């Protein structure tokens, strides 16, 4: 067996490309987290307080997305929308699919949070004459968000890792750049090890950020 000499040189020379890829991954993850959370909040409110037809519709969306792979959702968005006359770039299709995907999980998580709020609080707010919008915003959502924050962060981390799949429709991010680099340098092991380490660092960084955010945001006592 020929002995193998590790060569990280050809990869480290291109570290700028990798850093660029890491930024793109952060961008895809962050944008889809914001959009996904927005969908999740709206979805959970509609599911919990909306009329019956809307609640069922949201439930169907959640079940459908949670029981099919992200890759298929991505293909569906990417290949189907042009047929409907909507030409999206692969990045736009990726953001759309990622947000719809995360939105379903966020809806389910937020719904659990809303359910955890004692109904007495809502009744108390009502008897104080608060408007429904204010009750939902100040009494229900803020507390629900705090209750499910760890679960939400876990889902966000999975989302960060999930963005690697969008390389399948040629959206440019860290994994796509890594694949490109493998083709040019033929140093597959070295490239993927370095990229795995970058993802690892990103996950730890996002976890720290989420912890810091919760300390800043959820300061009130229960």
């Amino acid at each position, binding site marked *: 067996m020929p002995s*193998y000499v590790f060569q990280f040189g050809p990869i480290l020379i291109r570290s700028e490309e990798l850093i660029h890829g890491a930024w793109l991954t952060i961008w895809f993850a962050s944008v889809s987290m914001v959009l996904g959370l927005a969908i999740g909040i709206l979805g959970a409110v509609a599911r919990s307080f909306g009329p019956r037809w809307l609640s069922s519709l949201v439930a169907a969306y959640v079940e459908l997305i*949670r029981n099919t792979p992200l890759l298929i959702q991505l293909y569906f968005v990417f290949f189907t929308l042009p*047929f409907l006359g909507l030409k999206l770039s692969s990045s736009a299709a990726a953001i759309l699919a990622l947000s719809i995907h995360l939105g379903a999980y966020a809806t389910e998580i937020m719904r659990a949070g809303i359910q955890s709020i004692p109904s007495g609080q809502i009744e108390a707010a009502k008897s104080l004459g608060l408007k429904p919008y204010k009750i939902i915003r100040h009494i229900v959502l803020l507390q629900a968000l705090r209750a499910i924050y760890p679960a939400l962060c876990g889902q966000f981390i999975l989302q960060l890792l999930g963005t*690697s799949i969008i*390389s399948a429709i040629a959206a440019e991010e860290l*994994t796509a750049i890594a694949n490109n680099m493998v083709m040019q340098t033929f140093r597959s092991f070295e490239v993927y090890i370095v990229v795995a380490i970058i993802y690892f660092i990103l996950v730890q960084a996002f976890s720290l950020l989420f912890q810091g955010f919760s300390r800043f945001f959820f300061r009130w006592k229960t």
Partner: protein
Amino acid sequence: MNLREFGLNEFGFLILSARWTILLSLIAFAGGGILGVVIASLRISASKPLRMIAAGYIRFFQSTPILIQLFMAYYGTAFIGLSPDPWTAAAITFSLNSAAFFGDIFRGSIEAIPNGQWEAAKALSLRFIPTLRLVIFPQALKLMLPPTVGFMVQIVKTTSVASLIGLTELARTATMINTVTFEPMLVFGTVALVYFALCWPLSLLARHLEKRLEVEGRGRAALA
């Protein structure tokens, strides 16, 4: 253009390719389950280095994308002279990856068993392994069942990623049929329904088990 239609043949071809998705899922479940027990046992063992190795293992697999792990196994093993076929690479990657998640689930369930059970077993002079096997594991089994079934759903969905190293399962069959028929809505809609048919029953079962556990827990709390 001379395109094929998405007819009964293509539909049948797509449905039949589900067997490869199921097979890969079963391999990942069995391999990951067995290795997951080992990881969980290491994770709670008395030796600190062993605990740290298991924790590092779980951390690595949970903090890197499965796609990169798969590429590493498939393309990245050439440096030790290996060139695994897609099936071998996928079977190994999915087993190792599931083991990390199962290890975490099993450890959580085992640690949820009250300390008194361990002490009682010790008082009966049971050793570590018999304590686990006879006292802790049967009780932990109930707790780990709902998340284990829930994770099976994840496994089935994640196997679609194996299509990206050329393993011909559901997702890859769908892209192949889409290339020759160019009916993306029909093809990907159908394949989504096939995945849904595989995953939904498992999701419902997981939820049912979770609810039953909750009710039992409430009953026990009421008695206590």
